[in-house]
């Protein structure tokens, strides 16, 4: 018994050491290195500029690549396997928002709609963070179903919709008192316009088009010659932009309640662990791969950076973007990439053993 415990403890120590080693290694991985590099540049006042046109194109390339790969690998056989993870993705997205609704949004100094919008952003998914995890899994040789990244919209859209619905309910209840005319007017929240708006956004458009092309046409040649080889490189540039952005937003974050910083630091890890747990169930039930579990956890840990903010801005206009964008960009994303990814990877190794 005692012996057993000691072994376990020894194992624990080893596991922790391994996690720390991985953490340090992760800090040297290109994705995180460029992210930190971007923060550093911004902090030092560099005038380096990645033009807007390039940024938009990089995002397109990244999501098109994810979509193409997913679409090329989905076949009818997969649809059965996909069902449970898809369901879990929806469940996770919604749970994160509800969790934020009953914690962050109720804290003193946090306006209800600001808290709900923040929860919505953290429930939604960041394509770049997901891409960083995919690259790392490939480096580590941990396999995942090619359709796993295509779970993205199943977590992203429900989270955004739920947040918008909750914010509207919240504002309506308060409406008579504060007279937020506009929102109070359009009483029943219509869901379809929100879904449509999400799907029409540049990020999901590219992802879904990629999926459709991968599924219905034969893009293998252009995928292998172009979208795939440029993937890591474009990701590194995107991470640089995200790092600069993270630093630039710190100022805004500082102006809102400190709770946002706390939420943004702890939330990604909790959300990821929740997703990891559900993913593990899917592993046991339908054989969802360990790599897939990690990606599900990373999606949960990530917070939307491209499509989420404008959607929320348009749909919850009274919410303060400094709060939700600041929290997500400045703290949430760096935490998800720097701590979340190696944590879930280490956990997968510990839980699923040699894969």
């Amino acid at each position: 018994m005692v012996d057993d415990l000691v072994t376990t403890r020894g194992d624990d120590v080893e596991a922790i050491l391994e996690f720390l080693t991985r953490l340090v290694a992760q800090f040297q991985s290109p994705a995180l290195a460029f992210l930190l590099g971007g923060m550093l540049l911004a902090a030092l006042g560099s005038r380096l500029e990645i033009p807007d046109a390039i940024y938009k194109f990089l995002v397109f390339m990244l999501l098109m690549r994810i979509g193409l790969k997913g679409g090329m690998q989905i076949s009818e056989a997969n649809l059965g396997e996909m069902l449970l993870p898809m369901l879990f993705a929806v469940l996770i997205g919604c749970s994160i928002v509800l969790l934020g609704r009953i914690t962050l949004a109720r804290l003193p100094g946090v306006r209800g709609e600001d808290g709900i919008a923040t929860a919505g952003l953290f429930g939604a998914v960041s394509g770049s963070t997901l891409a960083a995890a995919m690259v790392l899994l490939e480096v580590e040789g941990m396999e995942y179903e090619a359709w796993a990244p295509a779970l993205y919209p199943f977590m992203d859209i429900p989270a955004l919709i739920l947040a918008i619905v909750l914010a509207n309910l919240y504002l309506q209840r308060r409406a008579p008192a504060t007279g937020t005319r506009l929102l109070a007017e359009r009483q029943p929240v219509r869901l379809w316009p929100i879904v449509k708006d999400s799907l029409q956004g540049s990020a999901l458009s590219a992802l879904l088009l990629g999926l459709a092309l991968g599924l219905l046409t034969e893009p293998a040649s252009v995928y292998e010659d172009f979208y795939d080889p440029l993937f890591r490189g474009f990701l590194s540039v995107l991470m640089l932009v995200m790092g600069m952005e993270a630093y630039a937003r710190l100022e805004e974050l500082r102006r809102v309640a400190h709770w946002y910083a706390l939420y943004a630091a702890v939330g990604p890890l909790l959300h990821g662990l929740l997703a990891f747990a559900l993913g593990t169930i899917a592993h046991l039930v339908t054989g969802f791969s360990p790599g897939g579990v990690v990606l599900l956890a990373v999606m949960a840990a990530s917070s939307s950076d491209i499509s989420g903010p404008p959607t929320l801005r348009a749909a919850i206009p009274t919410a303060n973007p400094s709060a939700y964008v600041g929290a997500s960009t400045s703290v949430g994303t760096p935490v998800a990439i720097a701590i979340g990814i190696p944590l879930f990877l280490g956990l997968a190794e510990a839980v699923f053993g040699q894969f």
Partner: protein
Amino acid sequence: MTTKATRLVIVTEKILHKEITRIIDAAGATGYTVTAAGGKGSRNVRSSGQPLVADSYPNIKIEVITADPAVAKQIADDVAARYFDNFSGITWLDEIEVHRLHKFQRQG
């Protein structure tokens, strides 16, 4: 030969592009001109949520010329009432002289 007309200028967030041009059309203006703009105003307290780093022109400047000042007034009022509680933006009017007045008059 020139005629007096009113030029309304709106500087606001890019995200409102579609909504504002819809208001302009609805008010019966014959057209508008849009340019990309950056800037600073009182909104320093709230961010637009758009990427700061990559896009140095996150605003738009919309100019609407109308023969009828009432049209300009209505657009300015509509836009302010609908958006300026929650979005940054300013509007101003300028008296100008247009050539070819018919281009700025509602037909029919």
